[in-house]
């Protein structure tokens, strides 16, 4: 079993194999994403009841909350890639790490924008220096730092290792930054879904939210696969498999 896994792991890391596999998966993932996003949006925008306190404007959570979750999830993916890069020197992980950063930054930006659009009718202002907003903003800067560093180093193999170290350093720091900012000031509402006891959100609002979260995850994979495929072609442009691919 373990031997089989190791073999698969090494094969999975080879660029031509991954390129083909991702190409096979993409149509299926796109179909799944379409179903999920339609169901989630219909459930969230039509079926879910109006909130007694926030009215209709609460419906932005069906985009805002999944985007905020993704912003953290993608950083975890990047840090895991960072560990793989430093331990196994895997080329594919370098490509995944560098391709995931812009997607993560976009999700973080989306979470910030939707949050401030929601904040205007609710809090009466687009921006408050509240703990979660601030730590999300700092997360955006961390993403931009990774993208900047990757872009600044010409040798992409070296750049891959540099961003791997940075991603791991950021990973150690994110909880520290998060809790220091939390302690500094808080006005944002407490967690409603990720509490240990029963979620304090009604089921008819919860299922569209979870569906949308899943849809966002699938979207991330689609977008990542496309970017990784393009980057692999660019990086391996002098190898035989790309040559054969272009000729066929």
């Amino acid at each position, binding site marked *: 079993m373990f031997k089989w896994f190791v073999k698969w792991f090494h094969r999975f890391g080879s660029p031509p194999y991954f390129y083909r596999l991702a190409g096979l998966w993409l149509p299926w993932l796109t179909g799944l994403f379409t179903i999920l996003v339609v169901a989630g949006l219909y459930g969230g925008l039509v079926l879910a009841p109006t909130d007694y306190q926030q009215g209709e404007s609460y419906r932005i959570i069906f985009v805002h909350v999944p985007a905020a979750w993704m912003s953290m999830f993608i950083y975890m993916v990047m840090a895991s890639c960072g560990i793989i890069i*430093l331990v196994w020197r895997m080329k594919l992980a370098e490509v995944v790490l560098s391709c995931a950063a812009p997607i993560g930054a976009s999700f973080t930006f989306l979470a910030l924008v939707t949050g401030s659009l929601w904040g205007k009718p609710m809090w009466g202002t687009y921006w408050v220096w509240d703990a979660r907003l601030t730590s999300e903003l*700092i997360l955006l*800067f*961390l993403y*931009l*730092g990774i993208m*900047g*560093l990757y872009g*600044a*180093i010409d040798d992409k193999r*070296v750049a891959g*290792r*540099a961003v791997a*170290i*940075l991603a*791991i*350093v*950021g990973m*150690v*720091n994110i909880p*520290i*930054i998060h809790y*220091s*900012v939390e*302690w*500094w000031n808080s006005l944002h509402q407490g967690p409603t879904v990720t509490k240990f006891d029963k979620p304090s959100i009604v089921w008819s609002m919860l299922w569209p939210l979870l569906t949308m979260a899943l849809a966002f995850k699938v979207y991330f994979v689609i977008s990542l696969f496309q970017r990784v495929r393009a980057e692999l072609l660019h990086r391996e442009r002098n190898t035989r498999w790309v040559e054969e691919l272009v000729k066929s």
Partner: protein
Amino acid sequence: MKRLSLSQAFWFLLRRDLLLALRNRSELANPLLFFVLVITLFPLAVGAEPNLLSRIAPGIIWVAALLASMLSLDGIFRSDFEDGTLEQMLLSAHPVPILVLAKVTAHWLVTGLPLLLVAPLLAMMLGLDEDAYGILLLTILLGTPVLSLIGSIGVALTIGLRKGGIILSLLVLPLYVPVLIFSSSAIDVAASGLPATAQLSMMMAFLFLSLSLSPVATAAALKMSMS
């Protein structure tokens, strides 16, 4: 050839770096001068009302300390990188994180510690409450080494780049946030007459955490940059 023990290597490197810094006295004063200058800009920009100034004094002092520390970061490895000493260091038999720690310590003694000397003077000029002077000095003593340690990771990552300066600030400033929050809040709390032990304990924790972890990351980044 005589073999150096690890602690000998640490002290030799520390002494060498301090000696190099002392031979170059004009550069020694630069971070300090920058610190004073930035703080001077604030009253000119926000107005000289004593109440306002004394309320924002902890923040001003710490933001200025942050910037001064960040601008001097490049000096940790720059000259050694350019003349090849760094390569020799990485090839030596001693563990690189310890050597990195020696260099960062020397850098902090030269750029971070002098802030202690002028900080009370500037605090007085900004009208900070007198009860908070001790805490201000303590936060500088605990906080500036953390800045140097975290910053060394960023410098090591960007040392090979031609235009590393802007990238360096993008990498390092977000990581400085916790230090800024706790140090200025400690001074704030002390100025209003309350005990600041919680904040100081957190800063102590940051110091030990970065002292143990950041040299490892810096060493890895240096090896990457030299490859």
